[in-house]
């Protein structure tokens, strides 16, 4: 999958799950800080990414992802073009 498509889907899911406007979300935004994801929201967000991209993520690896851009890169590795 192309990085642009992954980025679009990651931002769409992030906006929906964290009640943000998609156009306001930047790749540098951290989920736990700028986007206000607490522990519960973080888990729900991972679940939403899994469903959106049809993946079963490794929890340990997923925890290392801190930013929107990091998530896009992480999924890009799992979903090669």
């Amino acid at each position, binding site marked *: 999958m192309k990085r642009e498509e992954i980025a679009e889907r990651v931002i769409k899911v992030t906006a929906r799950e964290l009640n943000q406007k998609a156009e306001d979300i930047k790749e540098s935004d951290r989920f*736990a*800080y700028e986007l206000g994801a607490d*522990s*519960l929201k973080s*888990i*729900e967000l*991972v*679940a*939403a990414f*899994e*469903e959106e991209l049809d993946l*079963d993520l*490794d*929890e*340990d690896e997923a*925890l290392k992802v801190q930013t929107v851009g990091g998530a896009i890169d992480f999924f890009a590795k799992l979903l090669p073009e």
Partner: protein
Amino acid sequence: MAEYRVLTKAEIAALEQNGCSAESWDAVQVVGNFDPTRVVNSHFSGETLLGAFTEKINVDGIDRACGIYNARLHECVVGDNVLIDRIGSAIINYHIEDNVIIEDVFMLRAESGAQFGAGVRVSVLNEAGGREVILFDDLNAQIAYMQALFRHDEQFQEKLESIILQNVDAAQHAYGVIRRGAAVRNCGSIRNVHIGEDAQVIGAVELSNGTLLSCPEHPSVIGAGATVHNFIIAEGAHVDGGATLENVYVGQATRIGNQFTAENALFFANCEGFNSEVNSIFAGPYSVTHHKSTLLIASLFSFYNAGSGSNQSNHMYKLGPVHQGIFERGSKTGSFSYVLLESHVPAFATIIGKHLTNIDAPNLPFSYFVEKAGVSYLTPAINLFSVGTTRDETKWPARDRRRANNKRDFINFDVFSPYTIEKMRRGRAELLKLYQETPREKNMIVYGGVQVKRLMLRKGAKYYSFAIDRYLIGKVMDRVEQALDADASWDAVKKNLTAADGENVSEWLDISGLLTLKSRIDALLQRVKDGRMASLSDLMAELSAIYESYADDEWRYVAYAFKSEYGMAPADLTPEDFAGLLQKWLNAANSIASLTLDDAEKEFADFARIGFGLGFDEEDRQRDFLAVRGSTETNAVVQKLRRGKDAIQRRAQKMEQKLATLK
């Protein structure tokens, strides 16, 4: 048994010289070496037996001569080296054993035929009655649970009550007893109360109809300002701080104080009750409420922690206060949380907010219940990764304060046990079924009266799988390691993985701290019903045997559940099968450890630093936080979790090496 004699004329004269009088000196008998100079300004009526007062006894650091001073005694037996001084009204109908101190007490009175708290019926769970627990000296958490919760079996209840009433009848006494070494000082009125060995009753306002069990290994205390009516208080319990209790059982090593009030309540071992109010509760072992504004009502708890302002409601203004709550072991309620009864909160759940819906989710342990804008939401399995749960697992056994030789309550501390694992297996199946049945466009579904996010159905199921895999494969791995340490052959492993039959091993009960197979309880019920178990000692012996059988039963359950999960019995595994499962265990254990560590490390994140370094710059804010809270590099819990995570890797590697060198 001491030998008594009548007083000599010289002794009577000496007593009268000391300001003493008697209704009849003929009714006063003494031991051979009785010293009349140790009895001053006192009056005796009824049959009186007095011991030898030859020694001194220490009171508040001062040695005082034993004897009877400034007192009125009616129908009393007084042992050797007792100190009685300044009795406001009288001591009536008490047997006072050796080395007891009684001073500055308004009245101690026992009435013939009193039952001393035995036979009091405590209305737990249902304030309007129907689940009463009868108090008696040897009550424990398990017998109380059977009285309150096994109401479905009328025949069993009749037989159980008959066994209990034998003990209640035996408690009926013609007189009160104050056992050896006890102290009763600075108290108001005490009526029909037995006081146990080495107990300290100091500053109590009013006590009536009760027994204070106590022992030298763990003396009990009723202290400042306590008012307690209709009670049994067990060894090592501590009740003070103006507590007001009525119709209560206070278990071993339980602490109550700071204006706590309780009515119709049972507290078993190691509970704590301060500041709060409780009504009609069954507080199993380790139930804790510390804060003002908390009112716990009509509910069953164990290993429970109440946040400030926790409340439940049992009225609904229909047929009165008839609603009940079940909070399974390990539940926590957050500040100003509210739970509408009836509700059934699963084990190790956390409740946040005000829930105006009836929660009914026993198969989803380790869940969060959060209320937002009046709507209740459930997030399944999330507490599996709470650092609090990890702490609790080690905290409870380390905080078992009971020192009495006879530990009354049978307590299993395991957080992950067949009880919780089987609940998770059922919960997982329910979650996956709901996930498959729910269309993708639907964001939320209703489960057990609360909203669950559709996405969390699958996620919760996955998290339960982690816990199930870690537990089941981990238990098998324990036995593989044990066998390989003794003999590096797979035959030895297979032998160690055999299990007795797997019949009736999937149903488990938590009998207020005692985890056991339902089939064992069914058998116990049957034996009580058909009269094979007809005494309290039979019942206690059976409960003890059930408690001791936990390890064997757990292994039988593991073998059964393992086969159900992975398609083969542990004893049928090949080294290759096991190597595959080892990877599954590693993934599960590692995932749980990582998520738990992440939860702990959040305590050191930027948002946790709010309010630090007040008035100073950013650098000082960081320094202030570091000085007060430390860092992930210095925090003991985080370090322990990191070591634990490393240990998981090492254990898996070591096992792989062992498998590679099999004979």
